């Protein structure tokens, strides 16, 4: 059994909140560059250039890439041989979010659904915990903005809708979202499982290295097919026209019930932020 102090988890979550919001991952920056080289719209090129400059300012001056510093979504892979000492895991994570958003000058965006009263410290976070073998604890902090989350959907297709139905739904979702989710976007697709599990798969798909393909060649082919269709919509950077609407489509799949074909589309803006650490 390995012991990990709750206070250490709080400290790491705090740091990850700030790093995720200040420092756009290299894979996203590389995707900007590739998109810029291929973009046909002069306005689209100009927007992509400004996004590159924005990321540089944020990293150098340690300020948020975007004012929407997001919901604190935290993925935990907890080794079965790990014992948390000096407090509970959930409280440790929540405190890390509170400190990270406070000390990092990040925006507090969480409120009561009816009164809209702000909780004031960006808590509570959303925490997903997976139990894994071993004695490591992996923490991924993935701040999620509201604009792109609002454009996401879960649907329960009929099994007869098949792959074609899946492709149509995803492409139409992006089409209807137009400029709202801050394109160029990253599209996370969850296929199968149950209603809630499809959504979780779609969110996990967003954590993948931008532009990486699914290991299953069939799914990789569908990812590519959907990406081409999306970029042929012409929506472009910020929805103002262009050839770059999505930087990547990532699919994750799971077996489903014989009656069902659950499908979730989780859209991420171009500020695809996530940082991780293993303890």
């Amino acid at each position, binding site marked *: 059994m390995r012991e990990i102090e709750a206070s250490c988890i709080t400290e790491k979550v705090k740091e990850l909140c700030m790093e995720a919001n200040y420092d756009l991952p290299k894979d996203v920056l590389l995707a900007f560059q590739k998109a810029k080289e291929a973009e*046909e*719209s*002069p*306005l*689209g090129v*100009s*927007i992509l250039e*400004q*996004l590159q*400059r*924005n*990321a540089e*300012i*944020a990293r150098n*001056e340690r*300020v*948020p*890439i*975007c*004012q*929407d*510093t997001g919901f604190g979504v935290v993925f935990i892979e907890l080794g079965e041989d790990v014992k948390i000492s000096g407090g509970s895991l959930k409280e440790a994570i929540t405190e890390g979010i509170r400190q990270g958003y406070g000390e990092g*000058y*990040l*925006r*507090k*965006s969480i409120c009561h659904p009816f009164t*809209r009263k*702000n909780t*004031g410290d960006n808590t509570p976070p959303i925490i997903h915990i997976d139990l894994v073998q071993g004695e490591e604890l992996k923490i991924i902090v993935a701040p999620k*903005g*509201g*604009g792109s989350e*609002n454009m996401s959907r879960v649907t329960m297709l009929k099994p007869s809708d098949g792959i074609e139905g899946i492709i149509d739904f995803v492409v139409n979702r992006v089409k209807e979202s*137009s*400029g*709202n*989710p*801050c394109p160029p976007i990253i599209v996370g697709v969850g296929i199968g499982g149950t209603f809630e599990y499809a959504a979780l798969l779609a969110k996990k798909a967003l954590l993948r290295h931008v532009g990486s393909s699914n290991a299953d060649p069939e799914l990789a082919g569908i990812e590519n097919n959907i990406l081409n269709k999306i970029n*042929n*919509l*012409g*929506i*472009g950077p*910020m*929805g*103002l*026209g*262009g*050839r770059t609407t999505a930087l990547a489509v990532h699919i994750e799949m799971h077996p489903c019930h014989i009656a069902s074909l659950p499908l979730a589309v989780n859209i991420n*803006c*171009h*500020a695809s932020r996530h940082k991780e650490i293993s303890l």
Partner: protein
Amino acid sequence: MVKPIKISTPLSNQDVENLKIGDEVLINGVIYTGRDAAHKRLVDLINEGKELPFDISGQIIYFVGPTPPKPGQVIGSAGPTTSYRMDAYSPYLIARGLKGMIGKGARSQEVVEAMKKYKCVYLAAIGGAGALLAKSIKKAEVIAYEDLGPEAVRRLEVESFPAIVAQDIYGNNLYVEGMKKYAR
């Protein structure tokens, strides 16, 4: 690239008549911030026949909820939020003399009709470029609804704040036209 058009607030009818979709503008002067919660309160005041907390005539509202400023900063990161959530409220403010809105994403038909009738332009700023856009903001002061935190109404002084005319007073829509041009 065509040179950006410089505009200064308050805007006149002629200023907005000159702006067409696709034009890049640089804004100078005072603009006001407001998003979901502040819009609701402003429209409640109008419906109750009360005064607004600032003179909206000729002004621009920027849909933004900035991050808190770090010590030494005027304002934190300050990019646009998605505009359709303000669609239910904007026509009331446009009827009161609002001349410009800055946000991201397309507006509803009701907003477009009000924009045409009263002459108000809709500008898109680059979403997710909050660190860059903050550089154009030289002064920021909360003037109403401090209790709303990031959603409070702020008076901003901006210099060369960059935006793109997304929907003009003639009913043209760059979200539609731009997409048509690059679709295959």
